[in-house]
């Protein structure tokens, strides 16, 4: 092996170790941070960065455009899906246990149109309307009886 190949493999190795390091940081954050929202924050950012670095190492190690294309597709997909998943998890955590008012004094989501509870209520109201509109004869009959 000549010098260039050694340098190339050293770069790949450093990227792989760096990626694994950030994955470890994400896992440490998930274990050590105090509540579910901060844990979500740690896992989504550091996890995506670590996984992306390992995929970049794979793309650099193998020659050829096919591996490059696959690695770039995987990285793009990761960068698209991780924030969406984190957002959904954040909404779910917010719906189940609203954040501490001391840590987050301003809560503009609470009671707004995007609040999970408000959305659920509106969906219920719409469902009830539809349900009531479906059998009109039954409605009239109950009105007659009372």
């Amino acid at each position, binding site marked *: 092996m000549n010098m260039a190949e050694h340098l190339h493999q050293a770069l790949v190795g450093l990227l792989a170790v760096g990626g*694994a390091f950030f994955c470890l940081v*994400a896992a440490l954050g998930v274990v050590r941070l105090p509540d579910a929202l901060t844990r979500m924050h740690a*896992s989504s950012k550091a996890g995506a960065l670590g996984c992306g670095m390992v995929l970049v190492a794979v793309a650099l190690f193998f020659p050829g455009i096919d591996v490059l294309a696959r690695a770039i597709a995987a990285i793009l997909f*990761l960068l698209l899906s991780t924030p969406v998943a984190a957002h959904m998890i954040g909404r779910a955590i917010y719906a189940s246990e609203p954040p501490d008012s001391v840590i987050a004094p301003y809560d503009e989501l609470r009671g707004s149109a995007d609040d999970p509870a408000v959305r659920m209520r509106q969906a219920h109201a719409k469902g009830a309307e539809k349900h009531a509109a479906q059998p009109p004869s039954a409605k009239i009959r109950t009105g007659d009886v009372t």
Partner: protein
Amino acid sequence: MSGEISPFLSWCLVLALIMLFMAFALTVLRVLRGPTKGDRIVAIDLFGVLAVAFIALFTLYQSRIVFLDAAIALALVAFFGTVAYARLMEKQAAEKLAPTREAENEHG
């Protein structure tokens, strides 16, 4: 590259795999211990990302390209699983919360 792997790279790969296994252990710890359902979903999501990283590292370790397809497929499936679980949890929690939030709005 089917050629030889330099000692530095193989050392790096072993180190990276050890770090990744430590990350797996910590994530499983959070799945088992997580006080709320949200903590468990977060940990399962991270587990999926770590699995993708592990498969990518394994591709390097074995010098075989075929495993990379498995990594892409796993990323897709893990994302769908996380979204489905999060939606279910949000729906259940909002259903439980809706009556109290309604009373609150009528007061204020």
